[in-house]
């Protein structure tokens, strides 16, 4: 993890993000007309977020304590979110529970 690598990763990400934000203004017509792109654009965020959530957990150890902590923290996140519907509250509640478990049990 050299500084050069970190900078390159940041610049690559920024370039791709900017292209996605800017280029469609240059080619609005095909975007407007493609129902496939519209369908992908609507359905993709949901799936991408669940894939990413799973990805962030890929290095979880296969011990009962580790899997148990993750499961409890996930349940708290989802539970609080379905209950209150406040994104920040859900994120902080889930993270708080996980930090307590990870700092004491694991």
């Amino acid at each position: 993890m050299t500084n050069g690598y970190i900078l390159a990763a940041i610049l690559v990400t920024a370039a791709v993000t900017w292209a996605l934000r800017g280029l469609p203004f240059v080619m609005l017509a095909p975007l407007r007309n493609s129902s496939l792109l519209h369908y992908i654009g609507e359905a993709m965020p949901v799936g991408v977020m669940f894939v990413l959530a799973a990805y962030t957990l890929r290095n979880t150890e296969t011990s009962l304590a580790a899997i148990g902590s993750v499961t409890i923290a996930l349940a708290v996140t989802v539970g609080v979110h379905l209950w209150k519907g406040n994104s920040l509250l859900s994120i902080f509640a889930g993270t708080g529970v996980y930090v307590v478990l990870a700092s004491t049990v694991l």
Partner: protein
Amino acid sequence: MVSQFSNRDQDDSHGNGSLDQSAAHEAEQPLGEELAKGWRTIVPAALAAVPLGLALGVLVVQMGLQWWWAPILSAVVFAGSMEFLLLGLISAVTPLPQVALSALLVNFRHSFYALSFPLEQVHGFGWKLYGTFALTDEAYAVSATPDSHRWSRARIIGLEASFHLCWVACVTGGALLGTLIPPSVKGLDFAATALFVVLGIEGYKAQRSIPVPIVALVCALIGALVSPSNMLVISMALFVCFLIGSYYVRKHKSLGENGRESKENNS
């Protein structure tokens, strides 16, 4: 009845009159007023981003990066959820093509913001470049009103720039705070997981398609089993293939139904 109609006519003319007045008023507004309007437009979204920015900043330090990477990361990438993911990718020293592909998939939704963002109000090539660079979810959300196509350039750039500044300040502040957190506190990186879970639930509420989250999780599981180090690319590719496939299946089905309907109509 007659009086009601005439009343409504009066209301309409009154409404149009005040609109014209406010449009003329806007044109006369000094730059500072317009920038302040931009700030007021984005303020609720900016407040909501404060804790997330702080959390991201704390993570920058927790992932082993120097604190000064926080302002660089948040100013240059300026895409919240991708910044959370990028920290994980960087700490795993993920190859750059894979970083690029992840950014493409995670931020793909931004390519649809062009359909409604009032960029035509932002005159000048340089300003247009910044206008698209800073076209975040939040900037898109607050300008997704028909009204925004009458906003001034100063107001649009003002809302984007003030959100940009606020975000960089929060992430940097979080990184400085993060240096104070003792190493015995572990597991703060769960914030990224929780963020994606919450965004997934929110997306699901809008979409209401039961198979999509399940298919996504199956794709993630397959990716993890095939190759943990390439999990993201494999699972995302599988998921996009599924979406393209399901689109054509749907289209085929609806074409079939339309065909049947037209036959029934004919008979």
